[in-house]
C-alpha cells in the first residue's frame, strides 16, 4: 500500500519535472483569455464559450471567459476587439453575423485570424401547437396563395435570421414576412399566435418541442436530425437552404502564429472532452459541428462570404 502510494507520488513528481521544461518553453497562455462576443450573457454564444471554457481551464490551467458587449449588430463588440492589444489574450467569438457585417461593408473579415470553428447549428421553422399547418407543404401552399400574409418571427433586424428567411423566399418563390423581435419575445409571440411561425435552432426550442407546444416543420440542413426523424430538410423538398448559425473563435489578424497553433491545440482538446461533448449533444449540435482549424476555417469563411454576398445581393441589401 505504502509502496503503491510512493510509486504514485514518484511518478507524479517525475511527470511534473519532465513536463516542466516544456511548460517553461511554452508559457502561453499564462493568464486568463477573454473572448469578446456581441450577444447577451446566458445566450447561445455565451454558453458556447463557457462550455469550451470549463474543459479549457482544466487542460490549459488558465481560464477562458466570455465578455459580452451587446447590441448594435455586433459593431460595438468588434470596435472593442480592435482597440485591444494583440497579445494572444483577446479572442472574439464570431458567427455568420460577422460575415453579414462584412458583406454590408461594416467590418473587414481580414481583421480576423481564424482560430477554430467549433459549432455548426441547424435552424428550423417552427409553428405553435395551435397552428392549422401540419406540414411544411401546407404552410408553403398558403404562403404561395397569399404572398406576404404569413409572418415569421426572427431575432434581430437584418441579421442572420433575416438572411436565412430571405434565401428561403428566393428558393421557394413564395413570400413570408419576417418580424424582428428580441429572442424571448419571438417565442412568446409565436406561442401566443401573434405571428404564424418562427425561425430558431433546435437547442433553444427543445423544451417547447418536447412539451408539444411547438411543431418544427422543416430543418435547414443536408440531412434530417436523428432527434427529429419526421421533420423534412429543405434540401429534400428541393430548396437549397442549409445556412446554419456557426460559432467560432478568431484572433486579431496579426496574432503570433505560434500562439495560434498552441491555442488551437488547447481548444481542440477542450472540444474533444466529455464535458463539452455532453453540452453539444444536448442541443443536437453534434451532427455537423466538425471542428475546423485555422486554414480550413479560413477557406470556410471565404466560401461563406460568397454565399452571403449572393443572398444579400438578391435581397437587395447590398449597395
Amino acid at each position, binding site marked *: 500500500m505504502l509502496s503503491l502510494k510512493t510509486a504514485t507520488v514518484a511518478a507524479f513528481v517525475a511527470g511534473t519535472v519532465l513536463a516542466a521544461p516544456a511548460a517553461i518553453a511554452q508559457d502561453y497562455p499564462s493568464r486568463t483569455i477573454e473572448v469578446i462576443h456581441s450577444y*447577451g450573457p446566458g445566450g447561445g454564444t455565451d454558453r458556447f464559450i463557457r462550455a469550451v471554457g470549463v474543459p479549457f481551464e482544466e487542460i490549459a490551467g488558465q481560464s477562458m471567459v466570455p465578455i459580452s458587449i451587446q447590441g*448594435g449588430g455586433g459593431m*460595438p463588440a468588434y470596435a472593442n476587439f480592435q482597440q485591444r492589444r494583440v497579445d494572444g489574450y483577446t479572442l472574439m467569438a464570431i458567427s455568420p453575423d460577422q460575415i453579414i457585417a462584412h458583406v454590408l461593408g461594416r467590418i473587414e473579415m481580414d481583421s480576423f485570424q481564424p482560430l477554430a470553428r467549433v459549432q455548426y447549428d441547424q435552424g428550423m421553422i417552427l409553428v405553435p401547437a395551435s397552428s392549422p399547418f401540419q406540414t411544411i407543404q401546407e404552410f408553403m401552399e398558403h404562403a404561395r396563395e397569399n404572398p406576404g400574409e404569413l409572418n415569421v418571427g426572427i431575432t434581430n433586424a*437584418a441579421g442572420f435570421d433575416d438572411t436565412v428567411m430571405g434565401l428561403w423566399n428566393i428558393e421557394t418563390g413564395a413570400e413570408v414576412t419576417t*418580424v424582428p423581435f428580441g429572442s424571448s419575445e419571438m*417565442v412568446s409571440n409565436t406561442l*401566443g399566435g401573434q405571428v404564424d411561425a418562427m425561425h430558431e435552432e433546435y437547442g433553444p426550442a427543445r*423544451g417547447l418541442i418536447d412539451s408539444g407546444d411547438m411543431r418544427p416543420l422543416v430543418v435547414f440542413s443536408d440531412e434530417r436530425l436523428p432527434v427529429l426523424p419526421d421533420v423534412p430538410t429543405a434540401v429534400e423538398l428541393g430548396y437549397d437552404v442549409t445556412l446554419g448559425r456557426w460559432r467560432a473563435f478568431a484572433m486579431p489578424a496579426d496574432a503570433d502564429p505560434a500562439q495560434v497553433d498552441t491555442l488551437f491545440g488547447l481548444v481542440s482538446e477542450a472540444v474533444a472532452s466529455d464535458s463539452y461533448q455532453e453540452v453539444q449533444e444536448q442541443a443536437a449540435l453534434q451532427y455537423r459541428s466538425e471542428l475546423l482549424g485555422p486554414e480550413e476555417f479560413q477557406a470556410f469563411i471565404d466560401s461563406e462570404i460568397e454565399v452571403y454576398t449572393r443572398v444579400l445581393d438578391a435581397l437587395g441589401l447590398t449597395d
Partner: protein
Amino acid sequence: MLEAYGSALAYLFGNPSSFLLIIFSVIWGIAFGSVPGLTGIVGVALLIPFTFVFDPTAGLLLLSGVYVGSTFGGSISAILFNTPGSPEAACTALDGYPMAKKGQAGKALGIALASSAIGGIFGTIVLMLLAPPMAQFALNFGPPEYFALAVLGITAISAIGGGSVLKGLVAGLLGLGIATVGLDPITGTERYTFGNLSLLTGISFVPAIIGTFALAEVLQRAGERTSTADVITDVSTKLPSMKEFLATRFTLLRSSSIGAFIGALPGVGATTAAFISYSEAVRWSKRPQDFGTGVAEGIAAPESANNSAVGGSMIPLLALGIPGSATTAVMLGGLTIHGIIPGPLLMETNTQLVYTVFIGMFVANILMLIFGIRAARYFALVLKAPYALVGPAIVVLCMTGVYALNSNIVDVGVMLAMGAFGFLLRKLQYPIASFVIGLVLGPIAERSLRQGLVISDYDYWDFASRPITAVLLIGSLASLIYGFYGQWKRHQIAQAAKLSRGQSG
C-alpha cells in the same frame, strides 16, 4: 402541490447550507444593486461560474437571491445620492432623493425597503399560485398590446410636469428622440450614429440615467456655493409609521399588481414596471403636481412594482422557458449549462427545483428587510462626510461603474454628455421624470408599434381595435384629456383668484 412544497422543504432543511447561500446571495445582490454601474445582471452573471459547483437547485437559489437583493439595493444610492445603483431604481430617485433632501432620508429608505418587501412577497405569491395561467394570459399580449401599455405610461408625462405641461412634453419628447439613436429595430438601418460604431447600440440606458441623475446632481451641487445648506442629517432607517404606510396601501396594491404582470411579459422587466406604476400613481393621485418633490407614493409605487416584477419575470421563465427580463435570461443560461431543459415541462419534471426556488425567493424577501436596514445604515454613514469629498467620489464611482458594465469607454462618454444634458434640464426646470420616461418607454413603443404594423400589414384599424389595445389606448386618451382639463381648470381658478385679489386690493 402540497407534496411539491413538502419535497422543497425537505431539500432546504436537508441542505442547511442552502440558507447560507440565500443569505449570501441577498447581501451580494444588495451590494451589486447599490453600486452604480454594477447592476443585478452583472451580479448574476459573475456568479454563474460558481453555480457549477452546486447542484442546479442551489445554483438557482443563489441567482434568484441576487436578483431579489439587487432590485432593492439600487434604491439606497438612488435615495441617498440621487445615483440609481441599478436601472430598476432610476424611478425611485425621482421622489426618494427630494424626500431625503428634505431631511427625511430615513423615512424615504424605510418606505423603499418596506414597499420592496411587500412588492417582492406579492410577486412571489403570484408566481407560486398563478404561474401557468399568468404565463398563458401574457401570451395574449402581442406587439399592439405592448405598444398600448407603453403609450399608457408615456401619457403620464403631461401630468408630471410639476407646473408646466409644455416643459413636461418637451422633456418627454427629448427622451423619445434620444431613444431613437442606434439601429432601426425593424430594418436594421443606422440612425443618428454619425458613422460611430459604438453609437450603433444606441444611447445605453444605464450610462444615460447615471449621467442625468448622479452626475447632473453633482454638477448642480458644485454650482451651489453653500453646499452645507441642504446636508442630509437624518440617516436612521426607521420604517415609516403605520399610519404613513397605510396611506400608501392602494398605491402598493396597484403597483405590486402592475409589477407582477409587467414582469411576466417577456422582453420588458422591472425598470418598465417601475416607470409605468409611477405613471399610474401620478394619474390616480389627488395631488399629481406634488410628485417629484418627495412624496411617499412616489417611492412606494416604483419600489413595490420593481420588486414584484422579480417574481413576475420568473413566471415565463419557469412556466414556458422564456426569460421575462435580462436578468432571468442570464439565469436561463445558467440552467441550461446544468443540463436542465427550460420549457413548459420544467415545472413538472423539476418540481423540487421550482418549488424550492419559490420558497427561497420568499425567504430572500424577508432577509432583504433585515439586511436592507443594515446596508442602508452603512451607506448613510457616507452622508456624514462633507459633500466636497462625497461629490467627486460619486463621479469616480459612476465612471468606473459605467466602464465596468461593458468595458466600453464610449459608455463613459455617454454618461458625461448626459450629465451635462441633465444639468441643463434642471437649470431650465424641465422635469427629469418626463425625460427618463420617454427614454425608457420610447423604444418599447416604437418597436412594438412597428412590429404590430408589419404583422397587421399596416392596417391601423386592425392594430388599434384589438380589445386590450383599444381599452388601454382609450384609457390613455381619456387620461390625457382629463389631465389637460385639470390643468386648464387650475389655471382658471388661479386667474380668478388673481383677479379677485386685484379687485379687492
